[in-house]
């Protein structure tokens, strides 16, 4: 890790609440999202989806569909070559089934037609003969020997015998002597928990516009968190060279991890290739729920030992995650995050990845962490209650800090958990009185954060303005943050900078907008690109002045002689240097390319007060406060926004959101009517307290802030409801019927 990047400085622009550059477009309806693009001769693409939870596709007859007027192409899984790579094959098969449909909503065929009505008629005309197979959607059921096997041959070597083939992977993390740890405890509590699958719930359904030409070139416009990764996946699936596929990211209407992969893009490309015309596909909300990434559902056991004075002596968690019909990559994150907030001598987490007849899990904000931390933080809370300990003091006593060997391996550098807990302790919310029937809950949360492949170009224009080209879709104000960091480094006003998000042909590879990486990694690359440009501008000034480039330094947006020995020249501003660049060597640009490490982990603490109606089981959130370490809040408004948005998604997960399957294995609530995301009237204001404990791995100390906020709410709410009702809650969501039943009201 490069932990020497940070230097303390007084910021002039970073930390201010400037207007975002895309604001006017977005409040006037002008911003172009996935579904807003058109192309000459464009066809409408539609996808046919399997109505069964699990079915062999015995035959597909598309002849009647093809014979209809206006229908220009029909494709099935057989139109795609079988990718050699397992992972790419999974992505492709999730986009369109081959041989077997693995979940309700799995794509089985697609059409392109001259208008929506013709496309709809074509879907109806496709005849599919299914052999319906037994299915399984529950994680615990799917693990049992004899359960219907979703996919055979996917079991990793380290999975012990005695389980269903649906169990594909096993993980183990931890250190210390567990037996000795538990022996030291005065109180041990062991509990089992369940959490339902939830969906990212972005308001913009997936949409794309593909155009493949007969000479093998292609353009793809889509709403995605990562245009470069879309290019990688689509070019692999289509057997194209990356250079021939240009992917442009539209404005994105929310993603939260759910737009980090492809669902409809390869289908649109294949339809376009076959039809010889541009094809647009826009998912319906029903398709979004049935066929795009929900998060995992989980079943877990947690056992924690504690001494009378509140020291945790040992902690153990077993996490069983189902990630749908394909091997799930999230279990490992859950195992690593479960005990991350604690400094433990003995800790162990075991993870199991399980296949079920559900849609393929996609990343959702801190993937895998919320349900793991929910279970652990619930048991810690119960121990505090049983032992008569203050839950905040107890967490402080056991908190991970600099030098702690984390439960997942690495030793922590400077981290902000203790400061965050102290801030919560000092906040009036923690001491505010509660009325009967009300309860207060508390939980810590954690996310690793991520750096990754990043490159940035910074062009100095001859009028003294600056253009920044970066490669990560702006999902919540990142163009403003990137411009701010460049302005800070260059010493010019924020308003003189414009940051744009480039297509895949205009810049080197950038990893997906995920892992809370953009402000950290793109910010770092922007700062370094600015320094590169500064070096070049200083050299130009040196050339004009006839002095050594080393004798020039950059101060307040201008080149100045480095000292009295360098010579006496008035400062040359960025604008002055840029204006004469043609005479001093041509255009000036700064670049930086990096696979960034040094991302700083971010801890959060959430406090919430609830009131439970004992006659209906309904929970009302009365007050909510988020404390989180941002490292450095580059644009505090959008940092607060991330904290608030994450908290509210977590509140939804805790109280009402869930994937509901019927006995037939079909999803029963693929609508915003019955998949109940929080609405404005459900919520109080979400107070925020930003902590700034600098990340040593970033020049300005930035950590990511996007994901941590969804981790604590599950346990914070569950602990609050448990306190309000006097009954320990162990299953999410805590929907009113479930709560009423738990408290004996029905």
């Amino acid at each position, binding site marked *: 890790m490069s932990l020497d990047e940070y230097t303390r400085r007084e910021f002039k622009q970073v930390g201010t609440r400037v207007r975002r550059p895309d604001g006017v477009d977005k409040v006037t309806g002008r911003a172009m999202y996935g579904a807003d693009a058109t192309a000459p001769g464009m066809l409408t693409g539609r996808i046919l989806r399997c109505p069964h939870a699990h079915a062999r596709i015995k035959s597909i007859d598309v002849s009647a569909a093809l014979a209809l007027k206006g229908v220009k192409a029909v494709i099935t899984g057989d139109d795609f070559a079988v990718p050699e790579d397992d992972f790419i094959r999974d992505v492709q098969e999730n986009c369109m089934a081959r041989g077997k449909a693995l979940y309700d909503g799995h794509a089985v065929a697609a059409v392109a037609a001259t208008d929506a009505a013709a496309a709809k008629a074509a879907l109806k005309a496709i005849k599919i003969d299914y052999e319906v197979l037994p299915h399984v959607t529950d994680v615990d059921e799917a693990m049992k020997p004899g359960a219907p096997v979703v996919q055979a041959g996917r079991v990793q070597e380290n999975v012990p015998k005695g389980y269903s083939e649906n169990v594909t992977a096993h993980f183990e993390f931890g250190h210390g002597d567990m037996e000795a740890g538990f022996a030291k405890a005065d109180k041990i509590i062991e509990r089992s928990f369940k959490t339902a699958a939830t969906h990212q719930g972005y308001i913009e359904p997936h949409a794309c516009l593909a155009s493949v030409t007969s000479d093998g070139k292609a353009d793809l416009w889509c709403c995605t968190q990562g245009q470069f990764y879309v290019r990688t996946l689509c070019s692999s699936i289509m057997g194209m060279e990356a250079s021939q596929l240009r992917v442009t990211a539209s404005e994105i209407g929310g993603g939260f991890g759910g737009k980090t992969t492809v669902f409809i893009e390869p289908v649109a490309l294949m339809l376009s290739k076959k039809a010889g015309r541009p094809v647009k596909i826009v998912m319906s909300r029903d398709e979004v729920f049935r066929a795009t990434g929900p998060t995992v559902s989980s079943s877990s056991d947690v056992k924690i030992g504690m001494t009378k004075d509140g020291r945790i002596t040992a902690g153990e968690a077993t996490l069983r995650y189902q990630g749908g019909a394909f091997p799930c990559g999230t279990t490992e994150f859950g195992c690593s995050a479960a005990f991350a907030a604690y400094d433990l001598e003995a800790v162990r987490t075991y993870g199991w990845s399980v296949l079920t007849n559900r849609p393929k899990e996609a990343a959702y904000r801190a993937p895998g962490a919320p349900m793991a931390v929910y279970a652990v933080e619930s048991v810690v809370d119960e121990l505090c209650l049983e032992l008569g300990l203050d839950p905040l003091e107890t967490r402080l006593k056991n908190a991970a800090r600099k030098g702690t060997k984390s439960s997942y391996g690495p030793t922590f550098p400077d981290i902000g958990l203790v400061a965050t807990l102290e801030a919560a302790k000092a906040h009036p919310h923690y001491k505010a009185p509660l009325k009967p029937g009300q309860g207060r809950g508390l939980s810590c949360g954690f996310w690793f954060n991520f750096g990754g492949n990043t490159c940035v170009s910074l062009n100095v224009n001859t009028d003294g303005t600056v253009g920044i080209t970066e490669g990560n879709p702006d999902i919540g104000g990142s163009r403003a943050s990137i411009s701010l960091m460049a302005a800070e480094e260059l010493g010019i006003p924020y308003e003189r900078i414009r940051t744009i998000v480039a297509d895949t042909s205009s810049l080197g590879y950038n990893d997906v907008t995920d892992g809370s990486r953009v402000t950290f990694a793109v910010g770092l690359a922007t700062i370094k690109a600015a320094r590169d440009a500064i070096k070049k501008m200083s050299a130009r000034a040196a050339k004009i002045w006839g002095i050594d480039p080393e004798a020039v330094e950059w101060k307040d947006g201008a080149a100045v002689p480095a000292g009295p020995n360098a010579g006496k020249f008035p400062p040359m501003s960025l604008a002055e240097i840029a204006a004469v660049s043609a005479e001093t060597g041509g255009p000036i640009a700064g670049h930086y390319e990096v696979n960034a490490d040094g991302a700083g982990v971010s801890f959060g603490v959430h406090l919430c007060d609830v009131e439970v109606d004992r006659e209906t089981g309904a929970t009302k959130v009365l007050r909510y406060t988020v404390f989180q370490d941002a490292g450095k809040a580059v644009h505090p408004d959008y940092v607060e926004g991330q904290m608030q948005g994450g908290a509210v998604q977590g509140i939804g997960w805790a109280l009402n959101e869930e994937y509901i399957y019927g006995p037939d294995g079909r999803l029963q609530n693929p609508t915003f009517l*019955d998949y109940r995301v929080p609405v404005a009237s459900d919520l109080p204001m979400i107070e925020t307290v930003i902590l700034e404990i600098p990340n040593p791995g970033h020049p300005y100390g930035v950590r990511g802030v996007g994901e941590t906020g969804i981790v604590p709410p599950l346990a914070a709410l569950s602990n609050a409801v448990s306190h309000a009702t006097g009954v320990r809650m162990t299953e999410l969501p805590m929907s*009113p019927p479930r709560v009423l039943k738990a408290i004996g009201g*029905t």
Partner: protein
Amino acid sequence: MRYLAAKTAAEAAGALAAEKGLTRILAGGTDVLVQLRSGMVEPDLIVDIKKIPGIRGIVAESGGFRIGAAVSGAEIGEHAALCAAWPGVAEGVQLIGSTQVQGRCTMVGNLCNASPAGDAVPSLVAANAVARIAGPDGERDCPVADIPAGPGKTTLKKGEIITSIFLPARPDRASDAYLRFIPRTEMDIAVASAGVSLELNADGTVKAARIVLGAVAPTVVVADDAGKALVGTNLDDGALAAMAKACEAVCNPIDDKRGTIEYRTKMAGTLAKRAALIAYARAGGSK
């Protein structure tokens, strides 16, 4: 599909009666368009009734109100006299959907969609509201309670449309209330609901009570015994408990994604209790 914006009720009824294929009536469209979109229905003819004279008006009649079939929830909420006389009816219709849906949705549409969970229906039935129906054979009146026949089904005959709802005059010392339970604070379909209409004696005891439950049976249920349990009382705890019990006894709900049998049954009693207390206070009763 053909679209017809009928100019008169007779034209609408005639077109609906003459159509051999599937038909739908469009007033607010907040159910019909969802069904069209999902492919659940593919009508051959859709008749927009909003251009029929008088169908968007609320008029005083015989001490009560006649409400046109195309009057939106928002318009009902803005009619002060109607809201004062029948607050339970007004709050029921205003609970349908969002503000946006309120701009379009109608009581009659809610009634004819025939969902047992329709928010407008329990209070209308509790109010003894009467539907006026235009059809190929002319006009007839029918108690609202007799319109729903089961989930998605009504007793209306081919070619018939409801043109208005009549809410009778209110006696003195009478009022109503409607409550539903939903998991969120807005935007959900009722898991269970209760409309209560009360008339009090001069001494504050209940003279008459009509209690109607929603989402706990294939159609709304008139809980006669529950109403009787309140008569002669001033809603003491014992009366309320007996009333809740009587509500639970008439429930015949289903288990689904929105609620369990046991939960819905329990909620019906709880909501009826709470709604009765509100109606009682509105009628001038004091405890």
